[in-house]
């Protein structure tokens, strides 16, 4: 297939992906926001809009800011098709993004290329389906499984799933990039040591760390490209 045919095929695929993605995400949003009202009809008690508004002012604004930042930061990593899926299937930081990035490494594709778009979408769709299947199987077996999964002996393992993930990813991303990785790592470690209560706002600390690492990457890029 010639390069122009390939580009034409991808353009058609991409345009259709946006149409399908918009329709599917809109329906999903309607279903998710509508579900509490349907459940309200079943239970005979509708949600209290005033209580929901009060709680939204307490925590919702934080999640709104976080959601907007996440969209702009993660969409370039996920691609168009991947982002339509990832934002409706959730678990971005702990699952979808590492999964998409690992798949990109395995396939050896570059950000912004049609191949990367395909790989990212396949990776996130597969990950989402496996998550749905594992949880559905777990829910079906919940009663017999509950004693095993919630046994005290296994709890330390499941409590440490995120540190295990970031430790493994640290090796992959710090290797060969130590001059970019060390400054944000040292700085943020000091910040957490001086203000330990910030650990509950780790997701917000990603922003300055990422900005610093991107700044250092830019300086390195300029030095090597000159």
């Amino acid at each position, binding site marked *: *297939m010639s390069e122009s045919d390939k580009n034409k095929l991808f353009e058609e695929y991409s345009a259709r992906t946006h149409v399908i993605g918009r329709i599917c*995400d809109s329906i999903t949003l309607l*279903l998710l926001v509508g*579900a*509490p009202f349907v459940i309200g009809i079943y*239970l005979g*008690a*509708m949600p*209290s*809009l005033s209580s*929901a508004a009060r*709680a*939204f002012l307490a*925590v919702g604004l934080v*999640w709104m800011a976080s959601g907007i930042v996440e*969209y702009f930061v993660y969409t*370039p990593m996920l691609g168009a098709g991947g*982002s339509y899926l990832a*934002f*409706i*299937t959730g*678990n971005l*930081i702990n699952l979808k993004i590492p999964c998409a990035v*690992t798949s990109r490494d*395995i396939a050896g594709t570059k950000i912004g290329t049609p*191949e990367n*778009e395909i790989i990212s*979408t*396949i*990776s996130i*769709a*597969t*990950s*989402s*389906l496996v*998550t749905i299947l*594992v*949880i559905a199987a777990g829910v079906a077996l919940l009663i017999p499984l509950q004693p095993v*999964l919630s046994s005290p002996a*296994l709890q330390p393992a*499941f409590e440490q*799933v995120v540190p*295990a993930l*970031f430790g*493994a990813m640290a*090796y*992959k*991303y710090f290797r060969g990039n130590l001059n970019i*990785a060390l400054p944000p790592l040292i700085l943020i*470690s000091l910040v957490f040591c001086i203000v*330990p209560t910030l650990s509950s706002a*780790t997701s917000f600390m*990603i922003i300055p*760390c990422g900005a610093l*690492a991107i700044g*250092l*990457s*830019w300086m390195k*890029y300029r030095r090597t*490209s000159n």
Partner: protein
Amino acid sequence: MELMNKLNSPTMYLICGSIIAFIAAVCVVFLVRAYRTGISMGMDKAKLNRVIVSSASFTVLPAVAILLGVIALSGSLGIPWPWLRLSVIGALHYETQVASAAAEAEGMSSLSAAEMTAGSFTTICLLMSICIIWGPLLCVLLNKRYSNRLKSTGANENKTGGGFGDRAVTGMFIGLVSAYIGRYVGELVSGNGKFSFRGDPLPLIVAAVAALVMAGLMWIKDKKEVEWIESFSLCGSMLIAMAAAIILAPLV
């Protein structure tokens, strides 16, 4: 007790299961379209299959951890609602935090089945749904324009032989990992009194074990040229580090 029976009733399973089934169908549509287009574009079928196997194997462990989140929330919210939230849009740390805030706004002292009423349950469900709509909403509103803009940036980089987009994403990911590793350092050093070094060392140790195992697996892949090991490297590193946590937890 009567409310909990209703929260675990077949009707609740039907409502939540239908939404999960719809989203699963969306995933299948995206997967099939991307796979077929990849093949039509001349991409290597074996490579695409490797990505599927790698993504599936990588997902199993975190999915089991997410299942534990369903169990954790099922005591106060029943099984079907946490099943829906954690199967699709949500994440355990988000769901727990938002549900607790909604419970407080409803006048409950904590998120517990004992204080739950039908009205407070539906209010909690609504808040959990609304607080996390921003990602999908922005996708609907902006994704086409934003993706085209990113594409044109990438095209310009390729023309100039650049590729800063890739480096920027790697930089962002380094920032993300640094924030979490830094948090584990902070928890150890100041988690139990500033600079007392009496905090919880387990997350940092587990992260170090995972990094060491990953280093070992990458060494085997590079030196022995065992390419398939990369597909299981992340999953394997996590599994071994999590197993280490079981052994080390009683010692620290």
